[in-house]
């Protein structure tokens, strides 16, 4: 009950964190608007508009960075500035950390949904399956938050954890071949097919677009399995750090 009362304030803090809003909402919206102009009328070999693919990838790619706010709040409240006050308070800090994880993931998901809504309402993009795409955004948001909690609990220095989270986000964007094509190598191909949450999520949405639900579930379930595997790792590391 005591932890429940903090949820409202965590969400308020997230909503008033203008840097987060700038990086996870304003920047993608600005980029998508620019791309919608540049890629207007261009189609790929299959006849699909380039912008549709770009918008899908960008909406999902920004979810890779959603966990950074969870990491930052956990550090501030439980390991840095507010640590002493929180330690002295009669409430369950593990549950509180979990509530930050939930609020942060939900917030990241809402930003993703807002970007989707913007592309539909302003840029006129037609999403093949809203529900499925939102499900994948949710998976990506939760995965990113869990990974960031592992970083912040796993290393002593917060700046190292921040760098690791950037490596996680930028690394998977790079491996997805968004900046430049990856070399044709078994390792990169394996990562693209089974180890990169971004390519898996994009693949799952595309599979639904062509009606291949088996492939879509397969790819989405790999992301879900990653969450399932990393969740207990996060619990162990979190409990160890909060002890």
């Amino acid at each position, binding site marked *: 009950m005591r932890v429940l*009362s*903090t949820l409202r*304030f965590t969400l308020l803090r997230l909503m008033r964190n203008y840097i987060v809003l700038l990086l996870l909402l304003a920047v993608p919206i600005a980029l998508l608007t620019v791309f919608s102009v540049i890629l207007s009328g261009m189609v790929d070999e299959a006849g699909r508009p380039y912008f549709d693919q770009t918008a899908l990838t960008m909406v999902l790619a920004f979810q890779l960075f959603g966990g950074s706010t969870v990491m930052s709040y956990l550090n501030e409240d439980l390991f840095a500035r507010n640590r*002493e*006050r929180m330690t*002295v*308070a009669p409430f369950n800090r593990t549950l*509180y950390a979990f509530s930050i994880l939930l609020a942060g993931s939900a917030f990241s998901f809402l930003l993703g949904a807002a970007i989707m809504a913007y592309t539909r309402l302003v840029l006129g993009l037609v999403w093949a399956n809203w529900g499925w795409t939102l499900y994948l955004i949710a998976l990506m948001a939760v995965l990113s938050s869990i990974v960031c909690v592992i970083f912040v609990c796993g290393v002593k220095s917060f700046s190292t954890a921040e760098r690791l989270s950037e490596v996680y986000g930028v690394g998977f964007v790079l491996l997805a071949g968004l900046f430049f094509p990856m070399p044709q190598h078994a390792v990169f191909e394996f990562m693209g097919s089974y180890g990169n949450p971004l390519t898996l999520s994009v693949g799952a949405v595309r599979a639904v677009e062509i009606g291949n639900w088996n492939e879509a579930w397969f790819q989405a379930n790999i992301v879900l399995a990653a969450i399932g595997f990393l969740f207990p790792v996060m619990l162990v590391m979190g409990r160890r750090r909060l002890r």
Partner: protein
Amino acid sequence: MTLASMQSVLKRYGSCAALDYIDLEIHEGEIVGLLGPNGAGKTTLIQALTGILPVDQGRISLFGDSRNPFSDANKQKLGLVTQEIAVFEELTAKEGLEFFAGIYGLRREEKKKRVAEALEFVGLSAYANKVPHKFSGGMKRRLNIACALTHRPRLLIMDEPTVGIDPQSRNHILESVQKLREQGTTILYTTHYMEEVQEIASRVVILDQGQVVKEGTVQQLIETVRHEETIIFDVADPLGIPLRQVESIAGVRQVSVSGSRITVISAAGAGNLDRILSVVQQHSGVLGIQADKPNLEDVFLTLTGKQLRDREGSR
């Protein structure tokens, strides 16, 4: 009744003992002033007493409970004003206090009432709906105090609550501490400003190098050095003064230099001012002489051989 106690508490960092077999008791209704220079172990003591820092040896008891002193029931009665300002920058003053009231289990109506009281108490009612990043340092410090008050703790621990603030906010904080005591709150107040302790503390504990050097009321502590007098010389060339020669004068207990000041502690009534002055004058021009009645600073100097804080940093 004893609200908090430490018995032979040891806390080491490597080979350095931050708390060196400390014994301390805090009784209900007191304001205990914990006095010590930077690095004396004040913050470590507070962290040990509140369960933030595990200790290596010894026994800690809170509210008579030494088996599980940091239980939620005991934490409910404890308030901590941290040395570092720990407020939420994105939340208004009121929302920040509501957050802390919530984690102490206060329900809606009670929460509202206590938050309003706490804001009123620290003089921030007019700023209830403002976010702290627009506050001055002193206002942030006051809000930091209010965060520890919404649940009305029986024992309030304040870790250097007046560091780096303007005199007006400092006076407000000291008045608030007095008011809290009148309302029945027991307070452990740490500082390295002896004027504050002299003003508010009902008992003083002097800490140095992780040890309790002396404790008692301000008056009792001053009594211990009443047989001494402090003579302060302002000199033109402090480095030219042969300190050993001054120390060798009969009755002189201690000589220290801080900036252009030479502080000499001498046996009261020894009548050796002339002798000391002649030695000082031989080696430097004397710009001023001052003989002080003993105060806590002198007590500290006598007990530890150190100034409580650098003169340059004094207010």
